[in-house]
């Protein structure tokens, strides 16, 4: 699923990485526990999370996750946006809960990792 479709489905806002909307994610994973995210070996993964701090972005960077959706209407700090931009990570804010976010994307065909 392309990032631009994710943005449309979630009626979301891109904070950085606007020029990478053609990037395609193959699967999605939702977690507020970064330790679980770091266990993933898959590539081209979308991370959906309600955990909003610098380590959310660092975890994505280390895991080669290029697109992160911040759910529950959480707001990223300026430092988070700068770090994401520096790491080539597309950062998206959306007003839906994690459950709703996952449901909407799943219904449109985005598969889970497991």
């Amino acid at each position, binding site marked *: 699923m392309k990032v631009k479709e994710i943005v449309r489905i979630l009626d979301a806002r891109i904070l950085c990485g606007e020029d990478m909307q053609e990037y395609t994610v193959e699967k999605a994973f939702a977690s507020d526990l970064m*330790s679980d995210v770091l266990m993933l070996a898959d590539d081209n993964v979308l991370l959906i999370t309600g955990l909003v701090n610098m380590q959310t972005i*660092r975890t994505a960077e*280390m895991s080669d996750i290029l697109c992160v959706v911040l759910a529950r209407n959480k707001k990223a700090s300026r430092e988070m946006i700068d770090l994401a931009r520096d790491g080539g990570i597309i950062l998206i804010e959306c007003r839906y809960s994690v459950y709703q976010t996952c449901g909407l994307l799943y219904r449109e065909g985005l598969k889970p990792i497991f």
Partner: protein
Amino acid sequence: MRIVVPGRVETHILSGMTERMHFEHNIVGGDFTRAGYASSQVKKALKTLDVDMAIIKRTVVATYEAEVNVVAHACNGMMIVDIDGSTIQVVIQDEGPGIEDVEQAMVEGFSTASSEVREMGFGAGMGLSNMKKNADSLHIESEPGKGTKVEILMALDGREEVRSKK
């Protein structure tokens, strides 16, 4: 006041072909805003050396887990990275409480992390086992009350070589 010393980077070209890189980064205990900075520098360095992406990911996931542990538990620490033509060696050492029982700490789910660490998305007792999963070779030495030294070895040309070196 906490002072962060920027990392020192030295690059040498050996025998015209093999690049050798050495750098060190301070890790400040308790400073979660900067946790991951050292591992990020490792990732950037490995990318410039054209290391295989899968090896880069395994390396930096392991070093990041170790870095988060230093920030979560220790007063301060250091990440020392040496890259040559065949291996990546990362040593993360800290001045901290140490680990009483390394074998017990390796068990998935065992954690002594504070609620602050858990709020940052860590502390579920999976860091050490994930480091072991990702590293080609992992060696941990710890002295309670003094500190911990973690050595991560990665092979640039296949896991078995590094494992047999140990």
